[in-house]
Each structure stands twice: as C-alpha cells, then as structure tokens.
C-alpha cells in the first residue's frame, strides 16, 4: 500500500491529477489487517480496539500487522505475537482459559440458578394457594364484555 502511494507521488509530480483518477479499492491485505486489528486492544486508549483508535501507537500496531501479514505470517501467529508482548490485556475479550471461564459462563449460570430457584418458589406458592372453585367458562360474548369492563376499571 505504502509502496503504491509513494509510486503515485513520484508520478503525480509531473502529470496533471485528473489523468490519474482511479477507482481505489481495498486489497485482501487491507481486509485481513482490519479483521486482526479489530480483535486487539489499543493499550493506551480505553476499551477501544486498534482499528477504531486514532492513537499513534494503534497506527503503528496496524503497521506491524500489515508488515507481518506481508511476510506471510498467519492471523493466529500475529495475534500470538502481540499476546507474547502485551499479555491478555491486548485482547478485546478475556481469553477463554483458567479463571476467565467464570466470567464467560456466569451470565448463563446465574440465569439457570435463578431460574431454578424461581421455578421452585413459584410452584411452591402455587401449591400453597387454595384453588378457587372451578367455574364453567362463560360464553365468548360474556368474556368479551367482561374484558371491556375490566379494561375500563383498571
């Protein structure tokens, strides 16, 4: 990318701009850089990834990603490199190992435990509540009228 830009620059010094108007597009490399940059945290910013951040460090980190991709490193290798330099902090989410599992399962665990207790409690209450004598269902018209009256008073 940078190479191409300097090349442009050299050419453009001599030739009118409009002659070289062109359709610019992202290369595969650009897209790969973005995918990786979005998973890494800008360490000098707060909860911002290095893709979104405008900080100089983030810019340089994007440069490093680009260089390494150009050298043929894989996504996993590049992430591992940053991880080895900065630790877990560089990742945008807690890595799923060790004690971090706790925070990944906590919401669902809470939901399950809470749901279980709630279910037990409610069925318990239902059992303790005397059932009203069952009445035959009123015909539909009656039901409708009742609902209107109910709506009006509530």
């Amino acid at each position: 990318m940078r190479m191409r830009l300097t090349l442009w620059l050299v050419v453009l010094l001599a030739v009118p701009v409009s002659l070289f108007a062109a359709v610019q597009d992202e290369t595969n490399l650009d897209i790969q850089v973005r995918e990786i940059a979005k998973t890494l945290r800008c360490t000098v910013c707060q909860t911002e990834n290095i893709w979104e951040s405008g900080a100089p460090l983030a810019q340089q980190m994007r440069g490093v990603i680009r260089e390494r991709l150009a050298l043929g490193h894989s996504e996993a290798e590049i992430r591992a490199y940053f991880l080895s330099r900065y630790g877990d902090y560089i990742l945008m989410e807690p890595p799923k190992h060790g004690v971090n599992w706790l925070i990944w399962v906590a919401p669902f665990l809470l939901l399950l435990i809470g749901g279980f207790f709630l279910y037990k409690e409610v069925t318990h209450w239902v059992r303790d509540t005397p059932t009203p004598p069952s009445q035959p269902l009123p015909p539909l018209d009656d039901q409708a009228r009742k609902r209107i009256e109910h709506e009006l008073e509530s």
Partner: protein
Amino acid sequence: MIIEIGHFSVIVALVLSVFGMASAVLALKTRNPDWARSGRMAVTLIFFLLSVGMLSLVYAFITRDFSVLYVANNSNSKLPFFYTVAAVWGGHEGSLLLWVFILSLFSTLAVWLHWRTQPAIMPYLIAVESAVMFGFLCLIVFLSSPFERLLPVPLDGKDLNPLLQDPAMVMHPPMLYMGYVGFSIPFSFAMAALFSGRLGEEWIKVTQRWTTFAWMCLTTGILLGGYWAYYELGWGGYWGWDPVENASFMPWLVGTAYLHSVLVQEKRKMFKVWNLFLIIVTFSLSLIGTFLVRSGVLTSVHSFATDPERGLYILLFVGTVIGIAFGALILRSNKLKSQVEMDSLISRESIFLFNNLFFLVAAATVFLGTLYPLILETLQDAKVTVGPPYYNAVFMPIALGLLFLMGIGPYIPWRKASIASLKKSFSLPLLAGAVMVILLLVTGIQNLYALAGSYVVAFAGMAIVLDFGKISQLYAQRNGSNIFQGGLAAFTANQRRYSSMITHIGVLVLVVGIIASTIYQTEKVVSMRVGDEFAIGDYRMKLTNIHEVAGGNWNAQEGVFQVFKGENLITELRPQKRIYAATQTPTTESAIYAINMGHIFLTMPEVSEDGVAVARGVLNPLILWVWGGGVIMGLGVILNILRPRKKEE
C-alpha cells in the same frame, strides 16, 4: 464577585441540608408539623441557593472569566456561546454541581406536590433527600469546588474538550442525571415506607409517574450518548460497552425491572420486599455509577484525574447510603411476612418474575464485566480487557429471552391462563415469527442471531397488534363505530396499558435497528487522491476536492465526496478532519446521508501533506430504526405520564 456569591450560596445550601435533616428528624420525633414545614422551607431554599450557584457559574462562563479555575480549564475565548453554557457541566466539578442541583429541584417539586396528600411521608422524604444533597454538597464544597479562583489570571482558557462541543453532548449529562436523580424520589418514598412500616401499595402508586419520568430521562440520556458516539467518535458505532456507558446502563436495567414488577404489587399486592429491593438497587447503582465515573477506579475514555482522596470520600458516602438502605430493608423484611398467592406458573405475575430475573441477570452481567478487570487485578495481578465482543456474545441470548417474555407478558391473564386462551393469544404470533424467518431465509439472510432476533421481534410485534386489534374491534362493536374509533376508545380507556405497548413497539423497532446495523454493517477504508473514487455496496464515492475550512475555534480539512448510485449523483458528503486551535486536538467529523432508513457514513481520518486522503465509508442499514425506536419509546412514555388521573390514584 458574582462567583463568590455562587460559592457562598452553595456553602449556605450545605448548612441548610444539615438543617433539613435535623428538622425532618425532629418532625418525626415531636410530631410537630412546624418542623416538617421548616424542613420543606430548607429544601426549597437549597434549590434557590443552588440555582444561584449554577447561574453564577453560567455567568462566569458567559463572561469568560478565566480567573475562575474551572472556567479556565473548561472553556476558551473562542468557544461558541452555545457551548459556554454547556461547559458548565463539561468537567468533574461542574457536573457534580449539576447533579445536586437537579436533586434539589426534584426534591422541592416532590415536597410541594405531595405535601397535602402524603403528609406522613414528607419528613422521611425531606430527611433522605437532604442527606443525599448533604453528601454531594460536602464533596463540592470541600473536595471539588468549581468556584476556585486562579492566580495569576491566564490570558485564555484551556478550552472545553472538543469531543464535548456537540449538541447531543450538551443534553446528554442533564438527561442522564435527571434519570439517576429521578429515581431518588421513589427511593425516598421506599425508605419512608421501610422506616414508618407502612408497606402498602400507596408509595408505589404515588411514585409511579416519578419512576416513569426518571426512566424516560435515563433512556433518553443513554440514547443521546449513543447518538453522540455515533457521529462524533467517527467509527460508525453507537455503543462501545465502555465502563462509563455501562455505569448508566446498569441502573437502567434494574430500573426497568422495577418498573414492571411494581405492576404486580399494584394489582395483586405481592412482592413488597422485592420491589423495595429493586428500587434500592436501582438508586444504589445510580450512586455507584457516579462513584465509578468520578473516582477513576475504572479508567475509561471519560475518566477524570485519579484522586484517591476524592474517590475515598465518594465511596464512604455512597457506602453509607447503600448500607443504611439495605440495612433497613433487611431488618424490616424480618417483620414482613408477605402473603403470596399464586394460582399458576403460567400467569402474568409469574411472567413478571421471570422478566425480573432476566433484567437482573443482564444487570449482573454488565456489572461483572465492568468490574472483572478490577477483581482479577486485585486477586491475582493479571489484567484483561472485557470489551464489546464479550458483551455482544453473552448479551444476545439474554436480550432475546427478554423480548420473548415481552411478547407473552402483557397478553397472559393475571392469576391463571388456560391452555385454550394461550392457544388463542399466541398461535398467530408464533406463526408470524415463523413466516418472518422463512421470508428472511428466502432473501438470503442466514445469520443465526438475525434470524432468532427477527423471530422474536415478529412474535412480540404480532402479539401487540393482535391484542390491540381485538380490543379495538370489541369497542367498535359496543359503540357501533368503526375499528379506528374503537381503537381510539380502547386507547383512552386504558391509556396506561396501551401507551406502554407503544413503548414496547419502540423497543422492537430499536432492536431491529440494532440487529441490522451491527450484523449487516459494511465498511471500507481506502487511500485516495482528488479525482479518485471507491465503491461501497451500491454506491460510488468520488473525491472531488479537499479544501481548508475554518470554524470559530477550529480549522479543518474538508473532503468533498460526490456519492453516486449507478450514474446518478445522489448527494455530496463533506467529512472533516478538524484541529481545535486551543488544545491542538484533532477530531474526525463524520458526514452522513440517510437513505432507505439506513446511513451512508463517511469519515476522512487522515490527509497526508502530499494530498493523499484516507477515506472510511460505512453503510449502516436500518440505523434510523435505532433512533426511531428511541423516539417511539419516548412517545409511549410521555403518553403514559400524561394520562388522565383516575379516581383511585
């Protein structure tokens, strides 16, 4: 001189807050109404004194009096007039003053509004509100005063943070604080109920409008914050799960649970302790949010200078309020054996309980996620980031569950639902969901979250439409009118219920917007020169010019982009790269064009000296639904608050 008057007023207000507490306590002890009246006078005077304090600060900003440290730190001679007023709450000290000012306004309103109807509650209300005001006023007077003078007087101020020089940001803090502080009124009534032992439904009915109003302000504040982040931060997103955003989201979640759960107590006189618990948690989270933001415990984009002393004070104060509230709840709950009558697991009261469970788990998730780095660091000296990928992953299922319950809850009868009635109410909505999924599959949408979300939205939406259609028909039949008149009659007959349904529809619209704009966002970043173009989606953007523009306190490079669809010129977009003169801070101003309920969002984050611009285009489909949903929600809430009073209320 004027600033000293303001300073003095705030100090007097502090003294009066002590007087307010004392007279409230004396009113309770001696049962002499004169004490209560003097407490009311104290609260009212505090409001006037704090108004003087606020106005003196506004005056200092308008006259650009840089001999005031706070003014020098947060404004500049070139700052536009509009923002000089907003700069009052642009920094730490001023925003605390705004907090307590709104608190005094609400306390005064509450005292005068409920004076006749709730005489027994008033001393408690005065005591609680004065105590909270006392805590914040101490902080302002002793630890972070906006009235300090600066010597020697600087020639010019440092300027307001350029990111805050924005209309949405002018309204965001007051709205948010009105939300936080609004919950203090039901909280005070709850405390009154706990201390006086009158744990009936009255306090809930009296504060229902306050609660709804606070909820509306908080919702608006959060949405404004999102809107601001969307076009000001320049990455095309509106919610970053930043600790400060989370701090406002947590009280919203629990407040929403409370808003629903009080309905059960109103109708069925159950869950008294639970509702007290919820409002205490809501207000506590408002206070904890203030602590988290103001103490620097969690570093964040918005974070202010770390100052352990100030943080410690806030912690002690917040801890005391929360400790007293929960202490009272625990002691009182021992004496309170609430009779629960539950006829069936499948009933509206039971659905409300599950709704509460989901909201609380959602709040706990945000809480845990926000504090997890701190917990981990304290326990084992490791540091991690809990960022958007985490929240998006765990929040989605919880949100879907909530939406599903939203589709069921309002249409299931109290006490007990029969299988037949369930079939009648929900077979069509279930079908609607299925049809929606099939339609989306046919159009080629395969994302699981998008499908699941659309299913639930169609289900819940259909349930609302079906129910309202039926009731409108019944009214039309009864009155012999057409269905629209029937609908109007139904709406006015039960405005509280149906305005809430409008809010629910707003939520559904918002959710559609969120799903579409997060999952189907496309972006492209290219480097280009004048004359070059790039394509994104169906659109072509051609850079026709880059030129310099200047505002009052900034200079910018502006890119002129022509946007084409096919061969047709649709519009011209002008994103800017601004440099604010006083602080030399760069900002990226986005240019936005709305099309098909979505946005073409363009920024120009970099321009090199040799004229190569980096352009970033983002297509955000259906993003207007996010803001539109917010507006519909607000409309529902306003109709709810403005509903005519009924005899029982």
